[in-house]
């Protein structure tokens, strides 16, 4: 299912302009939504899941318009909200069963599917435990299970991996990749770049409600090529260089440090260019975006970067 976001604007009741003329096309497969806090990721997702109404513009799910075909759109959606809690008095399986029931599954078939999903996310053993007594990771798994129950065509997950240990994170990613197929679009928002590089074919970068980048992770890496450097510095120099450039990593070596930095031009240092990975790319982007955030008046520096 193709999702087309067209001239989407969202102005909240208090006048805050959370999304600005957003245009984006999302094709089946895993799609990453990146952006710093407050960028508008959740806002976009709430509009996609019909929790909020757009102020102007629209989103099309194939031909279904969020303004008109809400019933149809709801029947293809699966959603895991960012801040996700449970009813106090529902058991793990019941929670899933409730979702499955509303997704239109009936009778014995529903029970089968619920059990199968519980096994898939590794919660079958704790199916009779109160849902709100599960551990954080288990809760997330239950959350994703309910989001994928009923074979949705569009799965929207909002920052699903924050607070999870690496093992859980991998597990989570695997669950998601299991469900992705030809026709399913999975949209996930995250801070954790690693999640995206390993699974997303496409990503978008939002800041302050505006789309700053759209493309594949490779595209993003390509743009940051020649901006990542490796330098050997002494203790004294390190303190100095920290002031000037964003540092990606520091490795101690004899007599000093081997560090990686992002910079247009690290003049004055014996810098060796290295080929960037997705994390380098993100830091590069964020550095500029953050700067942009701090120096509101000096827009010139990065404004034409992604045009």
């Amino acid at each position: 299912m193709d999702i087309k976001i067209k001239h989407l604007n969202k102005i909240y009741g208090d006048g805050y302009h959370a999304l600005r003329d957003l245009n984006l096309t999302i094709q089946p497969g895993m799609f990453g939504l990146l952006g710093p806090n407050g960028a508008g990721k959740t806002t976009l997702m709430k509009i996609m899941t019909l929790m909020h109404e757009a102020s102007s513009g629209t989103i099309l799910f194939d031909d279904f318009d969020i303004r008109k075909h809400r019933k149809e759109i709801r029947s293809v959606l699966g959603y895991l909200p960012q801040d996700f809690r449970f009813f106090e008095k529902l058991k793990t399986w019941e929670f899933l069963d409730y979702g499955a029931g509303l997704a239109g599954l009936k009778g014995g078939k529903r029970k089968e599917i619920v059990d199968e999903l519980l096994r898939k996310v590794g919660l079958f053993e704790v199916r009779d435990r109160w849902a709100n007594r599960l551990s954080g990771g288990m809760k997330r798994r239950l959350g994703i299970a309910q989001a994928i129950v009923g074979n949705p065509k569009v799965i929207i997950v909002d920052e699903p991996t924050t607070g999870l240990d690496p093992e859980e994170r991998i597990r989570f990613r695997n669950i998601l990749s299991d469900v992705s197929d030809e026709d399913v679009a999975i949209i996930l928002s995250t801070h954790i770049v690693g999640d995206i590089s390993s699974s997303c074919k496409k990503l978008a970068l939002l800041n302050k409600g505006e789309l700053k980048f759209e493309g594949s992770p490779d595209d993003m890496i390509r743009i940051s090529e020649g901006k990542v450097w490796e330098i050997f510095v002494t203790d004294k120099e390190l303190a100095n260089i920290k002031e000037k450039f964003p540092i990606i990593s520091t490795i101690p070596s004899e007599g000093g440090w081997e560090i990686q930095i992002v910079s247009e031009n690290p003049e004055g240092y014996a810098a060796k260019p290295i080929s960037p990975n997705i994390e380098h790319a993100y830091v590069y982007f964020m550095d500029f975006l953050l700067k942009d955030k701090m120096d509101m008046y000096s827009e010139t520096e990065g404004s034409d970067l992604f045009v």
Partner: protein
Amino acid sequence: MEWHNINVNARYEVKLLTRSGLFRTFSVLAIVGITIALLMNNTSMINRWQGSWASSALTSLIPFTATYYYTIAQAVILIFLAGTFLKKGQKLDTTEVLMVRPMSNSDYILGKVLGIAEVFIAINIIILLIAGFINVFVNQTPFSVVPYLFYLFTISVPTLVFMLGLSFIAVNIFKNQAVTFIILLGVVGIDVAYLTDKWYGILDLTGCAIPAIFSDLTGMANMGLFLMQRLCYLILGIGLLLLTIAFVDRLPERKSSKQMQLYAGMVVCLLGVMTGLIYVSQHNAQTHVRNKYIATFKQYAEQPLLNTTENSIVISTGAEHLDAEAVMKIVNNAETPVSEVTLYLNPGLQISEISEDGTPLEYRRDNQVVLISRMVEGKDSVVLKVKYSGYIDERVCYADVVQDWIDSTKSESIQHYGKHYAYLDNKSVLLTPESIWYPVTVAPSNPSAKYHISRDFTKYTLKVANRENREIVSQGFPIKDSLYTTFLNFYNLSGISLAIADYEKRSITVDNIDYEIYNFRGNDFFSKHFTHIQDTLPALIRDIMGDQESRFGVAYPFDKMAFIETPVHFTSYPRTWKGNTEFVQPELIFIPERAVTLNLDLDAEATRIKEWSSRSQSLPDEETMEAQLLSSFVRVFTEETSRQRRNWEQQSVNMHSISPLFSNFTRYIYSYDYPIFDIALTTLQTLTATSTQARFWEGIVNNRQRANQYLESNSFQYATRDTLIDPEIFYELLKLKSAQLRMYILSHISKSEYENFMDDYFFECEFRRSLATDFVAKFKERFDLDLTPFLDNWYTEVVSPEILTSEVYASKAEFDDATQYIVEFKLYNPSTSGAIITAQIGTGGGGNRGGWGGGANEDNTYYYSIPAGTAWQGRILMEDQPSNLVLNYNIAKNLPTTNTFSFSKIDMETDDTTHGFVQIPVEKFSTTSKGEYIIDNESPNFRLLSSNEKTKLQELLNKESTTDKYHNMQFWYAPSKWTLTAADYMYGDVARSAYYKRKGSGGNGAEWTFNVEEPGIYNIEIWVAAQNMGRRRWGAQEQYYVVSNQEWTENMALNWNRTESGWYTLGTFDLPKGITTVTLSDKTERDYVIADAIKFVKDERKSDSGSNSNKQIYNNYE
């Protein structure tokens, strides 16, 4: 809307609700609480002596009570839970994942509603099962499953739907848990507590105050209207839920659907409101028709009066229909001719022909009035035949009763029964004169002047078509053939009644009187209590009848006394102007279905008798106990007033009293000048010496006192036309006035002479009308006493005498070997109207306070007339030792109207045995001695040191805000503000009153101010109002006073732990010239504090002995 989605939501709502701790606690509390309440009120398990007959004897009573309790509980639970609908519904992200699902908003809300409803209905069913169990196994009262289901679907479910709608909408509007809770609680609380009787109960959201009790014979009083009221709330509930769907904070499936839902919700709500309006307008329509009939009565009230001397009626009855023919002999008793014959007939009955000797006559019909063009010459008569058929329109009944009474469904308990004044259906026919089911010439009521009514004595013959399996009951001797039952009457009656139903009949003949009981088949609840006295029954009945005959001074005038069961809704009103209710007719007494509203619980009474007797040493046999039970049963019909079962302080006119059988139905004295003469004379006959004396349970502020107060500014004549006077107060007023007439007569002629005269007179005009002028003439002839001047005054004067009393003593006079006693007292009437007072001396027993009629009897009763401005001394010589003197001021401003003076021991001796009642010079009467200064709480020198104002809010919420100045003393729960009360142990000249309040922290006080003109030594004495009734109380009982003047201030205490009221010395003080105040604090060890009178007594001896620097000389403080 998809059923599947609704169902899933409902299923999970059920899980969530039943797992909520709050809900679980509430529902367990509700189940346990309601079970206990049912066991307490609807079974005899806990209240063994009080019984539960009134709340369980009909099949619908227990299910109604259970439903009522549950409906209230349900409302409370819903109000508490309403907040959580919001919490779950809108804040937590949990619901977001559900909201994303492909369901519509209506699926979501309806699912929730369905889930909640399922749970509440399930609990309702549990409660009904418990009630059913209690019904069948604990109480073994009549059981039917129908009312259980009926109330579930007509009371609980509509209330549930409405309450859900209301809570959901409130949550959506206010979006705040606390605000929603408070608003819902306020709305529902105010509604249930205050608004259920407004506009025929349309605002009663639970519907519990709409009459809904079934008669087991004829069903509900008015099911149509009940259902309409319930439908109103059901529809409104649905409307509100639709609106809720529109208000849900979730994007609808289509843009337009929100608007659609909003419109739909509003339309449905409007529909509900319209149903409510129809309900009200239906009621209004009834009132409208009733008013039309009232206007008709008024219009023809002055029509010349004709009398019917004979009336032969042939009638056949069917469902909602009767066919009849009446042949009437109508007499014009006046000298002047009458141009038209006026008849009254129920407006539901259509006349097909009126003829005389086979010739049809012209007539006009104006609702219940029929005007026949037939001139009747003076002293001439005419025989008319009236053929008519149709139904009975009950709205013509009780045209003389205020609309409030008609509309009131008030009941003593939580059940509301509804009303019918006549029955004409398959199951039951019940027609009394009030429904004008046969043509009469005298109207049954006169709404323009209630007391200006007349009574006719007619020889009736009634021929009733037999019906299969139906027993026919009426006055007279029945002769039954294959087609008809004919009732022959041997004397003239004031009206006849007809009852037809599937009755079981029991009868016994004692001394030529047939005693009959007709109960609906299967409704015999009484015989099982009287199995052992079958043989002695005639003797018991003879005794009981003998008692009644001697009580009324006449032999029972009829040959028959039948008790007939009626459907429970059959109602009447206590119309003092009629002298009888429709429950009591000549020969017939109608009792409610299973005697459920009769204040009679044979089971409980039997238990009570058994348990009381078992306390005495010798256990009486079954026979004695059953005889006792029988007399309890009889008491229900012989008491003048009936005390209510639950609220024993409340008493009301006993509508089933058989006293009219001995008086009203056998005679009628017509008076043009004093239309109330007949009823007053009848009332007078039933009065005894103690009838107008206070009874201890009534308190000081009672209807008698209110009647007295009324007479201070209104005449008796005015009262008879006053449409606003409370009937219960009027009844007391009537008793006071009748007593006044009686006392007037008895202060001139002896009681036996008077009684003989009355017997002769009544015998002479038994079963016919006589004239008051005739009565007065005969009285004058016999006693040479013209009653006319007294009667004129009696009828028109506005009286407010005040009587002061002083020097009440009892002393002993020893002669040779005999001891005699003198009781003396002085009375003074400073007012401008004459008074009659009653003095009664109690003998025997100790000097126990109260002596509420105890020991007093007619022989020791004296009537004294005290003209305005005169003073008198009474001295009564007694053979036996007097224990108390009760002075009854009758019609006077005095409060209480009765004063009791106890003589606990008599130490005074005298050798003066002159006795009698002599006038004394006014100067010889004084309530104080020289050098005594009394400041009472009614004096201008007394004031309260606190604001005694009620706040606006208190006034608003105080439902029973009375205009009474004085309040009954409730020492077990004293008011928090100074409250004026009165009692004969308090001090006062006319009003023996005092202020009292709950103990406080000293913030409120009372102050007596005395201007000392002659400085010197004074005793300050406090009137201690001791209501302890001879018992001392435990613990400290001090009241604290401060005596002060410009020179010094002294704190004092006085012990109030006294067994006798009187003056007690606070202390002796040297008072300087000028103002001295005594202040009482509300800080005390007692539960309450009383501010009454203070006396300053100049101590001449000590004052003379020169100045004493010590300001306080002597303190009586114990």
